[in-house]
């Protein structure tokens, strides 16, 4: 069974590579590069350290942005829970903020923060914060009132309730946000680099395309894909560990591609 699965998966990989090879033979290396060329270029770029350099830059922008946006997005719902009035006042503004197409802000961030890491971090943070905020908020609002009553009767303070009931109950929701936000953070960093940068995988794509160097574009795309897969895997495992109290299947069980 397990072996069959692996064989089938490898078969699909082989088919994809064959199709790619066919395209490059049919329409020319110029447009499609080729599997062999891309592999060779990858080895070359790995060897001279270029690939690692650009990957690290993009990963750094994504990670910083994820933290700068994700931490407030995670904590703000807990603050707002304590003050329903402030929550009611802010609600339409948060909804409007969520509605702003963040990628359209990229040129503005370039104007404000220059062309180094900062505008990419800002772009990623603006994407991630709303995603994490709204899913965590849903978790905070879905707190089980019966648990809260039980805790109050048992002598729990508001702080105990926030810590022992609202927080653990909201964690699965927060992770729903993280799972969506994680690939977005890489995407945001790349878009930031496409617009203006002299480093990063987005820059590699941009530079490659400008030079009609499709091989470099493909190398960058594969690298990005691998990064996103690794991030998804990390988030899924962190989640599995944090939520080990949950039954493995059933309502609310999380679905993560590739995990």
């Amino acid at each position, binding site marked *: 069974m397990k072996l069959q699965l692996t064989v089938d998966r490898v078969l699909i990989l082989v088919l994809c590579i064959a199709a790619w090879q066919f395209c490059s033979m049919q329409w020319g290396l110029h447009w499609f590069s080729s599997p062999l060329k891309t592999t060779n270029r990858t080895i070359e770029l790995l060897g001279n350290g270029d690939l690692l350099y650009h990957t690290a830059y993009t990963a750094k922008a994504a990670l910083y942005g994820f933290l700068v946006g994700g931490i407030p997005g995670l904590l703000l719902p807990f603050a707002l829970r304590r003050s329903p009035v402030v929550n009611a006042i802010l609600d339409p503004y948060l909804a409007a903020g969520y509605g702003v197409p963040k990628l359209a802000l990229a040129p503005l961030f370039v104007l404000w923060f220059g062309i180094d890491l900062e505008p990419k971090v800002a772009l990623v943070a603006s994407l991630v914060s709303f995603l994490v905020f709204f899913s965590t908020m849903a978790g905070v609002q879905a707190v089980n009132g*019966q*648990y809260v*009553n*039980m*805790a*109050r*009767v*048992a*002598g*729990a*303070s508001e702080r*105990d309730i926030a810590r*022992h*009931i609202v927080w*653990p*109950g909201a964690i699965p929701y927060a992770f729903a946000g993280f799972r969506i936000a994680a690939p977005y953070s890489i995407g945001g960093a790349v878009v930031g680099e496409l617009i203006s940068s002299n480093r990063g995988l987005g820059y590699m794509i941009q530079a490659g395309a400008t030079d009609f160097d499709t091989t470099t574009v493909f190398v960058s795309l594969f690298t990005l894909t691998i990064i996103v897969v690794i991030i998804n895997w990390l988030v899924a495992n962190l989640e599995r560990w944090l*939520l080990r*109290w*949950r*039954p493995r299947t059933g309502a609310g069980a999380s679905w993560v591609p590739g995990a």
Partner: protein
Amino acid sequence: MNATATPTLEVRGLSKRFPPRSGQAEAPWILADLSFAVAQNELLTMVGPSGAGKTTLLNIICQVDAATGGEVQFEGQTMRLGNGTLNPGWDCRFGYVTQDDNLLPWRTLIDNVTFPLRVQGKLNDQTMARVTELMKTVNLVGFERYYPHELSGGMRKRASLIRTLAYDPPIILMDEPFGAVDAQTRTQLQQDLLRLWNLGRKTIIFVTHDIGEAIALGDRVLVLSRSPAKVVAEHRINIKRPRDLSNVYKLEGFGDMYETVRKELL
């Protein structure tokens, strides 16, 4: 044990209705002018039809929910039952075992049982020894590190029961705590409850819709009417303790009492 002579808890003229729904001029009364008293260390059972307002009554006594009128006195002190002045559990004087076990799914069994002690800052060697004792009494030893979803319904009920007993509140309210389990488990749980109650007598108000359960467990049974709930009858249960619940139906006086209460409930 004379309830009227030394009442530890007294409910007087309690009434409750929820705010009217839209399109409704007046909401129906859930409780109207309900009065009764409970003696120190008495196990009082209340039996009433589904929807009689039993849960609402316990919610009010526990100060989880506000009353519309009437008053409740506990050990001579009058509780403030209005909206905004509620103090759930009244500083841990009231234990409350609800219909659902309300075990926190993200905590292990032992962490759930010790939860009240932890938040009250009373978790120490002495209370931990008490918890261990309770765990033994209800056969939960060996399952300390299990999460609630890994336990059977009966085990979860027992855990929720000893979670309240662990911090030793002077009075405990129980709202059909054994409702959603099979008959055999139920008898076992009832027996566990009586055993625990015998170990350290305390005042218990046990609410149920099961006539047999009310008679088998109680010192005294109050029969409630349909909503708005009123006490329609009161019976002292003179079945000798300790009671063997595995053949409670054979106990002297059980059958007649059952018939009487059944007719009163109609």
